[in-house]
């Protein structure tokens, strides 16, 4: 049966040149930029002069420093997972249940989402400014001297504030989808509010908690930038250890092994999330959060408490960003607080190559990544061809892997002829496309699932080949996913570092890498100025894209969806 289906699918594909061409080209690209680097990484880690060996792995495990890094990564991930889920839940409850007005919600969202679109060091820099030896809070307010802002707790704090929006975004639709009527029904049956919260709301949200925790755990595990700045020497974690192994000791094999140690918990989390939590989400997550009337299931004092706690967190976040802006505008933060444009002058003169390179790379990657995401999403969701599921899985690999693994794999695979691509812009662009387009793929698949297949069949019956159908019907309908995917690639091209730090060179560098260099040289002013610049650019582009999306959606999503997508 399977063989017959495969034969029929193959026959069909061979008669459809557009489909055949797309599938072949995509497999070539996926092979080159996903499978080949990963294979090279594994070969490098597990072979010695052409023979399979576990020696490097065992050697690495025997090193107490590496073992500590492994354990530390897990502890950090677990802590960030718990704290971030709690914060995310707090925000989600406030947003859905406290009865805040629309404008307050927008403000709350802005504060919560800011960290997600910021360059990776933003929170870390702000924490150094706040709690460092000359920190605003530690030194100026509390009068402490020689405090250290480095170590486990500051790293955990920074990562929690950076990644809790993931938990918020995961939990909010779930809690919003728990019908307040359900709670009110229990209320009307005479349950106390606390009892209802315990027996109705919380159990329904449990799969959401698990999901949020796992996502945060994975994000923390993969985070490279925060521990690099804040963890210090006494708290090594895997991504930074792997980086130091390669850049400090030029030990590619050791770096490869360390990055693969990261793979084990990352894969476990991914599998748990996909096959266990994914099936236990009770409420349908639509991603659409409508305005709800104030729920009576929350006591007034509880609502006030929620709002106060949330506002405190939001203020803390805004304070960090304000501090960053301030630091970029004074001569030397903590020492000389007189106003200056000096740091901006520096980043637009000395730092200009980095800005130019980053923008060029982001602008090249953006349309390519958007198109790639839409094309793969379309093929996966709509077409039948041999190896379709394999393509779906392979296209997600670089997205699911921690950036450190991807970066080291690219470095190993593309460092030598015949594919000596490191040092060029192409490899950085490719890294971004294959790492960050999966968001576009997911969005495309989700959108296509709402668009009835008969639209494409109608086009075919009217004489259009698969290429024409894609261009004339499918592409216009999935434009929102295209722009969403393109936006993510742009944002990440501006803010990511974990993978691409291995790929920059003298001729092509990135703003994020320059921020890191500034931080290590203690040139905090320019680092702050670079961060502000990135945030502004990302903000402008994201606002532009969402305005465009709003305009795109009006004819499509509303009435059209009602009348045409059903049936």
């Amino acid at each position: 049966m399977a063989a017959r289906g495969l034969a029929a699918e193959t026959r069909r594909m061979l008669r459809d040149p557009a489909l055949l061409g797309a599938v072949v080209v995509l497999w070539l690209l996926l092979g080159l930029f996903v499978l080949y680097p990963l294979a090279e990484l594994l070969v490098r880690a597990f072979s010695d002069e052409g023979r399979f060996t576990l020696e490097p792995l065992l050697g690495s495990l025997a090193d107490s420093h590496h073992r500590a890094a492994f354990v530390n990564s897990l502890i950090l991930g677990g802590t960030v997972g718990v704290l971030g889920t709690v914060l995310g839940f707090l925000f989600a409850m406030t947003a859905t249940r406290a009865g805040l007005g629309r404008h307050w919600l927008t403000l709350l969202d802005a504060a919560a989402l800011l960290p997600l679109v910021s360059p990776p060091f933003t929170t870390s820099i702000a924490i150094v400014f706040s709690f460092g030896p000359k920190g605003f809070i530690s030194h100026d307010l509390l009068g402490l001297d020689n405090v250290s802002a480095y170590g486990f707790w500051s790293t955990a704090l920074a990562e929690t504030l950076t990644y809790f929006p993931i938990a918020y975004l995961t939990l909010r639709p779930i809690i919003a989808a728990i019908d307040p009527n359900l709670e009110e029904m229990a209320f009307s049956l005479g349950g106390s509010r606390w009892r209802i919260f315990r027996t109705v709301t919380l159990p329904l949200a449990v799969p959401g908690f698990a999901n949020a925790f796992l996502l945060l755990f994975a994000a923390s595990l993969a985070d490279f930038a925060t521990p690099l700045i804040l963890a210090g020497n006494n708290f090594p974690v895997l991504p930074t250890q792997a980086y130091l192994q390669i850049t400090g000791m030029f030990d590619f094999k050791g770096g490869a092994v360390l990055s693969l140690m990261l793979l084990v918990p990352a894969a476990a989390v991914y599998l748990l999330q996909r096959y266990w939590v994914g099936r236990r989400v009770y409420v349908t997550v639509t991603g659409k959060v409508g305005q709800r009337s104030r729920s009576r299931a929350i006591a007034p004092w509880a609502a006030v408490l929620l709002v106060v706690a949330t506002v405190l967190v939001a203020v803390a976040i805004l304070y960090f960003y304000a501090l960053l802006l301030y630091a970029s505008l004074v001569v030397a933060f903590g020492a000389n607080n007189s106003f200056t444009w000096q740091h901006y002058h520096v980043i637009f003169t000395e730092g200009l190559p980095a800005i130019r390179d980053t923008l060029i790379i982001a602008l090249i990657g953006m349309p390519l990544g958007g198109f790639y995401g839409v094309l793969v999403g379309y093929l996966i969701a709509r077409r039948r061809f041999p190896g379709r599921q394999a393509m779906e899985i392979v296209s997600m690999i670089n997205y699911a892997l921690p950036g450190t693994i991807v970066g080291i794999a690219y470095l190993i695979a593309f460092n030598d002829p015949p594919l000596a691509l490191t040092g060029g812009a192409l490899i950085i662009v490719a890294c971004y496309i294959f790492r960050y387009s999966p968001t576009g793929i997911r969005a495309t698949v989700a959108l296509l699932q709402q668009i009835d297949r008969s639209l494409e069949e109608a086009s075919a019956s009217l004489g259009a080949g698969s290429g024409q159908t894609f261009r004339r019907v499918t592409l216009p309908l999935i434009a929102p996913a295209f722009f969403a995917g393109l936006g993510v690639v742009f944002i990440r091209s501006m803010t990511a570092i974990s993978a691409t730090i291995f790929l920059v060179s003298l001729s092509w560098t990135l703003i994020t890498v320059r921020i890191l260099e500034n931080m290590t040289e203690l040139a905090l002013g320019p680092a702050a100025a670079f961060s502000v610049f990135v945030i502004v650019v990302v903000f402008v582009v994201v606002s532009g894209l969402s305005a465009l999306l709003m305009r795109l959606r009006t004819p499509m999503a509303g009435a059209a969806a009602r009348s045409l997508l059903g049936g």
Partner: protein
Amino acid sequence: MAATSIRLDGVSKRFDHTVKGEVYAVRRVSLSVATGELLTLLGPSGCGKSTTLRMIAGFEEPDEGTISIDGRDVTHVLPNRRGIGFVFQNYALFPHLSIFENVAYGLRVQGRPETEIARAVGEVLELVGLAGYERQQPHQLSGGEQQRVALARAVVFHPKVLLFDEPLSNLDAKLRVEMREQIRSLQKRIGITTVYVTHDQEEAMAISDRIAVMDRGEVVQDGTAQDLYYRPATEFVARFIGRTNILGARVLSADEVEIEGLKVPFRSGLTAGQTARLVVRPEMIELAPASTGGEVVQHTFLGEKTDYLVKLGSSTLQATASDHSRRPILQIGQPVAVRFHAEGIHILK
């Protein structure tokens, strides 16, 4: 008789079922549709009628058998190279295109000149009564209007065959009757070979030249509406088309049978002593008040007619009386004499 336009030869389609394993959606279906004819595939949901239609369109590929259109084997030809017009149950209008652009789609794909497109679209919109709707968006139209746009879009580029997949099932009852008459008259006017899929037997009888009844992936009978109604080939067809009584009978002689103790004159073509199963339509059973015989157990007054359930021996008969004399309807519990009209009895093989 006109030439054959569509021919299906031993067409089968299998699917993998998670529980039952491999199942036939369509099993060895052979059909032919004459040029200009309207054939309806009729059957309950899951009988394979839509799959058969989708194989004619090329959306699905048969696992066995061949399909030809106008003498050309199209079994493995992609849908866009078959020259078909397809009308979908959910209309499938392109939501991002205006009515004009929806209808013009097929012509644009063929690369026709702008002036020809404008003229052809104008004509066909006129034909379906939607002139002046060109600039509207699909979601601004009612369901019936959308279906007419879908129809216009399917015929504007003069396809060789027209295929309908339950086109009226999303419309309300009154609109359905209106639309099916429109479809029928348009189809006759342009004389296009048509295959029409529905599960509604009344719609099928109203619209078709010929009906193929499908059950569990197979065509069980293929004929005119009269054939199916009066001479059903199987119990399934008899029950699916109209209301019916299926009765066991014993053959008494060459021209007499016994039904529930009643002697009924009927040439069964069987020899004495054999048993047979007979199809008798409700309107072919006449009831009259009597002292013995059957007994009325239910009556439903429907205005133009009255439906009865009558207990006769071990059977419960459905009978319909369309009585113009305004006689009082028979009461429950009333003993009745039951008479079968010999010309209305059909024997099942």
